[in-house]
């Protein structure tokens, strides 16, 4: 069985086992390691990607289920790190170890795409399934709010 998945605009045909989670297809097969493994059961959000424009846990989404879909990973969020969230993450010095941050950013990008003017409560709710063990939550909230402001102004 062969599957076709568009990842960051590039079409990939693959005959890997369709039950393989998209996470491991990205990380091990394509060597796109920006998408992180954190828990494997959809509890931490480190593996968040966009599938047809919606934030999804790539550890829970199989290659089979991704067939024919458009996937965006952190590597494809912008060409050059210029997404307002990426810029806001830098200006707020959000990251400590940085491991969870691709997942945080992908979740936040989904929020802003659907709700360009979120309240702090809405930002918190959107990100409550993304764990950061370094404890950067305060800065994450500020950065999302900053990015929203930037996007509105743009």
């Amino acid at each position, binding site marked *: 069985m062969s599957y076709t998945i568009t990842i960051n605009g590039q079409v990939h045909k693959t005959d890997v086992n369709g039950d393989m989670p998209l996470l491991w297809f990205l*990380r091990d097969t394509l060597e796109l390691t920006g998408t992180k493994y954190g828990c494997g059961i959809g509890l931490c959000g480190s593996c968040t990607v966009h599938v047809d424009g919606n934030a999804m846990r790539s550890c829970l989404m199989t290659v089979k289920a991704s067939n024919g879909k458009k996937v965006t990973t952190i590597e494809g969020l912008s060409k050059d790190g210029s997404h307002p969230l990426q810029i806001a993450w830098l200006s707020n010095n959000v990251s*400590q170890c940085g491991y969870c941050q691709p997942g945080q950013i992908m979740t936040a990008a989904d929020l802003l795409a659907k709700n360009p003017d979120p309240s702090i409560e809405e930002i918190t709710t959107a990100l409550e399934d993304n764990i950061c063990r370094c404890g950067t939550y305060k800065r994450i909230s500020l950065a999302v709010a900053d990015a929203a402001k930037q996007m509105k102004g743009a």
Partner: protein
Amino acid sequence: MSSSNKDLTAISRRDFLKASGLSAGGLIIGVSLPVSLLGSAPDAEFQPNAFVYIAKNGDTTIWCGRCEMGQGISTALPAAVADELEADWARVSVLQGDANKKYGPQATGGSNSINQMLEPMRKAGAAGREMLVAAAAQTWSLPADKCYAKLHVVYNHVDDRSLPYGDLVELAAKLPEPEEPVLKTRDQFRYIGKSLQRHDQADMVVGERVYGADAKVPGVKYAAITHVPVLGGTVKSFDKAAAMAVPGVVDVVLIPRFENAYGSVGGVAVVADNTWTAQQALTKLKIEFEAGENGSYNTTQYKKQLVKNVEAPAKKEFEKGSLDQAFEEAAVRHKATYVGGHLSHSPMEPMASLVWVQDDKCEIWASTQDPAGIQSTIGAYLERKPEDITVHVMASGGAFGRKFKCDYVQEAAACSKAVGAPVQLTWSREEDTQTGYYHSCSAQHIEASVDADGKVTGWLHRAAFPPIGSTFNPAVVQPTAGDLEAVSKHPYGIENMQVESGMAKAHTRIGWYRAVYAIFYGFAINVFTDELAHAAGVDTVQFLRNIYDNNKDGELQEQAKRCRGVLDKASEMAGWGKKLPAKHGMGIAVHHSFHSYVAMVVHVEVDGDDITVHRVDCAVDCGLVLNPDIATAQMEGAVIMGVGLALNTEISFEEGAVVNSNFHDYPVLRIQDAPAEMNISFINQEVSPTGLGEPGVPTLAPALANAVFAASGKRHRSLPINPA
């Protein structure tokens, strides 16, 4: 498919650049490390420590020998070099040093990187600056003291000539390296004390930061592992047929326990074409484990036993004054017992490394806090010399003390050796949760006396917790005198004291968890102090002030003074004593650990069992702050970790094995439970810098528990307050 973002050969290229730097005419500047940091006197073949390299085009590379796990050390230390070097930070690249004793101790823990490395790194920068200035002076035939460096350029006071660093490196490289370069004074600092942006942030937000789990080399295989669930247990039997039949499986590898404090507890690994296949095949293994001597370990029972051990006389390890007399003459006496559970570090990146064992070499890419520990452990395992083990230090996706130990690296080495290929082993979250080096569970009993003047006169403190020493020597079955020093040398300086050690034989591996014993000492001492203040009818902040002011112990004057400093600052920041709404309360805690001083005021709201942390005000005295923003981030992170361990997280054992498995039953703090407001203030920056990674953790839980008491009248003496 491009794999440029994880092209590990890039590291080799950089090494090549470094090696060829001299012949290419760049300037290499060493760092002179004291013998105490090198471990042995440099021998005749000892090479200068290349920490800094300036290329002919001026591009500057600074190597960081300490490990980066999110704390920002790979920015803070190189920035100090750049400051002394008068380098333009925009022209500086930072590279992580591989394991090499030339960097001095690379083990990154105990919050001592800045303590140990700041001066040598600054000197390297200053030496480079002086050499470049000397080269310019020679070029211009001017005295060196008429020349000065500023932002990658040397100028002089005589005319308007200038030379960029790149033009000077060839000549500078021929000049002698000054032995005692003159360091800048504080008013001359360009980067130290400023919130310079971390060098590694940009890679993180585009997914290009390469962690140990992301390391790849051509031909890499992937492994998953299941461990012996009980410490000291064994794999009795296993049937690998079904696992081997899974397409893509390369091999099933039995890994016996490696009798080394940093070695594997034992288990079975599957090596496959990808991680998922390895994980799937692992579930098809039929493994029978033998539990062994720790098979009845049950933390509920064990903690009860620890309580018994501290509520009866135990082994006396420290005594001063006359406790009996103090207790006899007391106006107020109080006693209480405090309990804490095991904790798991649970960094977001689970244990992971890539190892390639070959006949003539062994190359390792690992997230680690202790590169030399990997060299010695893998050297012992492979029966090779430590220096023959090459360790590339990768960014750690969090560590918190766990990645000091390299059992996961040794297991990857076992897999690589078995299949003759490079193997990337990534532990599942479940294995990470269940195969830790846990923070000790603990019980402490305190009895104290207050005299008629409100002065604390006597303090009896018994502590029982399986000590970290047990991981290195199973004969260690209770805290040592050294383990109890946080009490016996506590800044309170109580005149009459007795400190006792209760039995606590370990039944699991105990390790350093961020802030280590300070977590439970800080909790017990601060909650007890709050109780004692209430018993004496004195406001807790005032009561603490009195204790510090009454400290007459000559060796503890500085500690008492600095504790008092953060106490005053934090209580002022929080508006201590102001009227709060119903169900709201404030609590305070002060703790001295890792040479630094922290006071926190936590403001909570309590509604039934629901505890909401509204605000945390935190005063820190860690002396000079190298990078205020990174330092603030460290404290914010410590607050978050502190709230999590105060309220929710505990590792429990039944029948010798860990019960928790993933973030549903080890619920680390999430964004919705983070305090809405955190205020961090650094004081007393005139003195030398001390550690910051850990000291923020111990104060949160006791301040929170004291706040809950203030809000609700309910006294919590066990952590976590609301176990999952």
